[in-house]
């Protein structure tokens, strides 16, 4: 996989992970182009499209689009399930995940992604193993930190 992008229905980028070296300018250009292309597609259309010399696999979950760019020989369907497994992982971790969870806990979203995919390849497919790794890290965190600001954010979530 060359990169993964998460963006909202309004076209706001929520998470980006690049597995190939690209300049910031290129990344921005690619993002703009893909967000536009994917948002323009109708709901019943197929989840794959050719783009430059890559294949784009995308799927929408509620207000968020998950979009992966894979190479010619890569398997589209299994990529679709990579997306789904990632959503499941987020869901399990956050407890019915929503866009705001990803906005405000972006670092967790990244950590989960890194446990699941590394260097653009699937590292660990077992849900249990991935979440175990994250929970261990959280335990380390709990020890050293107190919760802060959580009230403010809960307030925000409601207001949104």
């Amino acid at each position: 996989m060359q990169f993964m992008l998460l963006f909202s229905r309004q076209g706001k980028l929520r998470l980006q992970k690049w597995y190939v070296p690209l300049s910031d300018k290129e990344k921005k250009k690619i993002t703009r182009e893909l967000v536009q292309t994917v948002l323009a597609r109708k709901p019943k259309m197929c989840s794959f499209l050719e783009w430059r010399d890559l294949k784009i696999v995308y799927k929408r979950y509620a207000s968020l689009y998950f979009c992966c760019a894979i190479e010619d020989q890569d398997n589209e369907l299994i990529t679709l399930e990579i997306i789904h497994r990632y959503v499941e992982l987020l869901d399990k971790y956050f407890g019915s995940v929503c866009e705001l969870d990803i906005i405000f806990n972006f670092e967790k979203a990244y950590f989960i992604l890194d446990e699941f995919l590394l260097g653009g390849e699937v590292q660990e497919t077992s849900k249990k193993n991935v979440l175990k790794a994250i929970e261990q890290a959280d335990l380390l965190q709990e020890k050293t930190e107190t919760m802060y600001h959580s009230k403010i954010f809960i307030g925000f979530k409601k207001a949104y």
Partner: protein
Amino acid sequence: MQPLSAGSGLEAGVCKSKEAEIKRINKELANIRSKFKGDKALDGYSKKKYVCKLLFIFLLGHDIDFGHMEAVNLLSSNRYTEKQIGYLFISVLVNSNSELIRLINNAIKNDLASRNPTFMGLALHCIASVGSREMAEAFAGEIPKVLVAGDTMDSVKQSAALCLLRLYRTSPDLVPMGDWTSRVVHLLNDQHLGVVTAATSLITTLAQKNPEEFKTSVSLAVSRLSRIVTSASTDLQDYTYYFVPAPWLSVKLLRLLQCYPPPDPAVRGRLTECLETILNKAQEPPKSKKVQHSNAKNAVLFEAISLIIHHDSEPNLLVRACNQLGQFLQHRETNLRYLALESMCTLASSEFSHEAVKTHIETVINALKTERDVSVRQRAVDLLYAMCDRSNAPQIVAEMLSYLETADYSIREEIVLKVAILAEKYAVDYTWYVDTILNLIRIAGDYVSEEVWYRVIQIVINRDDVQGYAAKTVFEALQAPACHENLVKVGGYILGEFGNLIAGDPRSSPLIQFNLLHSKFHLCSVPTRALLLSTYIKFVNLFPEVKPTIQDVLRSDSQLRNADVELQQRAVEYLRLSTVASTDILATVLEEMPPFPERESSILAKLKKKKGPSTVTDLEDTKRERSVDVNGGPEPAPASTSAMSTPSPSADLLGLGAAPPAPAGPPPSSGGGGLLVDVFSDSASVVAPLAPGSEDNFARFVCKNNGVLFENQLLQIGLKSEFRQNLGRMFIFYGNKTSTQFLNFTPTLICSDELQPNILGFITKPVDPTVEGGAQVQQVVNIECVSDFTEAPVLNIQFRYGGTFQNVSVQLPITLNKFFQPTEMASQDFFQRWKQLSNPQQEVQNIFKAKHPMDTEVTKAKIIGFGSALLEEVDPNPANFVGAGIIHTKTTQIGCLLRLEPNLQAQMYRLTLRTSKEAVSQRLCELLSAQF
């Protein structure tokens, strides 16, 4: 529930307006900057908080140009969360500042050595995310050790494997192969499926470039796969995904197997069983209604089909795969229909399944008409293109044409190119071809590129049987009140050349033709008008009766004083030409266009350019490539020879296919000069020794096809040749440079006994034995390459000049490389094949001093002229040249790879040739070495 470390009040995601957001962000950035610069040292917690805020702002889409140092500081914190945020910042905002990189690498080194698996994990994740060359330099030696160490934890092993993979992708030269590779292969047997999953990706990538080193992975991968596909859905616990056992791993294993040719019979049996099981499972009722179940199951199925296609050796599996895809063509899931169409495209290029694919033609055509998603329709067009052959070409071309009327603008040009190529390639009847292209212009004139209309003109000019029809058809098409400018161009050109063929009909008399064309003149763009002016002057030559009318037009102010320089110049010159030139001169100047020589259809080249060379290969090319390269052996697959026996229609186009396949008898021309030969036949030296300098001239023709082969005071011999697959045709022009006749002029083609069985050459018809002074006569030699050869045929010319007997012999530059067909391939394919041809007798290498200045562009041109494809960006060293192609002979095709490494300092080259046949490697190496 979680600490929301993004920080207070910064959630610009919820800010109402863009300006408000930017204002808020700038304020926050200034705040953070002042904190970082402040006199008071920040504690780890605050540093983490601000670094995290910066990340958050960056992810909102704003540029961040500071904070790297603070992030690097966090790396050396002992607190997990601080370290973690530090690493995240570094991975997301990669920075190429070398001082920073040194610090980052130091921190990573410490964490890798810490033996704390969580810290090691973070460090490895960071390397895998950044993957820069500096990191490869620092860690590529270390990570293999971590990977194979006995006491490394499973999760660390997984990260290490993929981390190494990332470094290998960016800097393959920095990852040393060694003892660790065999231990990595054995990770395929690991207890922990997560470790196997990660390791399989690494092994696949490494095996693509080093197949030999990793070939033991084949049997291990097959047994692992076999265990997975036969396991019950609960056996693998958490690795079962919606009732499908380990789908990700299965896909990766199948992918790994695609790096290799079909395995040995024992392993092959097991693999076939696996593949059959996967195909069988596709027929079973689903275990779940969830789309995830069917996706995971079908992901494995499609990968299995890819492997079956890659092996291209089990007809039974290929046909089953095709039937399975056939079912998917009508599936209600759009995704499956899309993938089935895509996958069938590759199946269509296999000899075994081509026919099976063709049975789905109606479904595919229907998809073209009814699919609501343009990307699916695009796949349907691709598949129709792939399955097209002579039997169904008229139907497919007609369907594509009718689809074109409503096709999406984004894919019109590509469809136009495809229609043009198919119409040409499978034209039995060239009137059909002409009709098709004119239809194309009518329906989608705007999308008809120059290549397409140039091509139709080339074809009409090269085929005299269609010229009259073409003239008549364009004349009729031009009658339409509104016709596309491209039609005016084609019409202008064709009537200018062949208008005379229909001028006998009073309905298309010269004047009517002229008036028709001229009625379009004023609506056209400058280039088209320029073309029409040329047509007019051609008319002056063809039809003297319209000369006054045309001169009037040329003389008018709108032409002679046209603001456009090109038009004005043409008008002035043509008018003058028509006034001063005698009919003879006019006839010479405006002689009919000579046939176009060519090697590759310009349209095909355009399509390749449009879609990238790897995606559109000529179908027949792919077929051959497969049979030559996958099976690897020197013997061609029987299928490919049968493809050869019917010369491709594009060869027909140039009349090359007309060469009689029977062995050549004595050249007919020898009969003409029989007397003369008789006179000298008692002496053994009937044939003169090779003319001096002939060797040099010969070498000059290795990379080109046209030019002067020989010249002395009396005679000049010019050549023009063209080669297609294993056939060639050479036009030889004999010029009498004197003012006196040559008598008993007798050229003879001599193939030595050694050469005889390998090359068939025959002169199509004898030349007139008398060549007038100053005249040039032409002769055609048809050539067929039966198998590879070294020597070249000799052309002997005997004639009488002013009472003296002249005897000249020259080598005809018919060399093995003329039968090259270039093959484009990606870097990984190239190296895979390179490795496959690693037997010592398959490689020939020559190191030699440069005889010419070492110029990159010249070298490129020579390699292309040599006939192989020049593969850019394949060799890791950009100074090297890499080429690939297939030598076509009647009996076999030989895949050839070449690599030329210049050494500017030493003014030397090293040339390496790898082919499946020693003699071929040897000969090609000799030929090409002499060129630099």
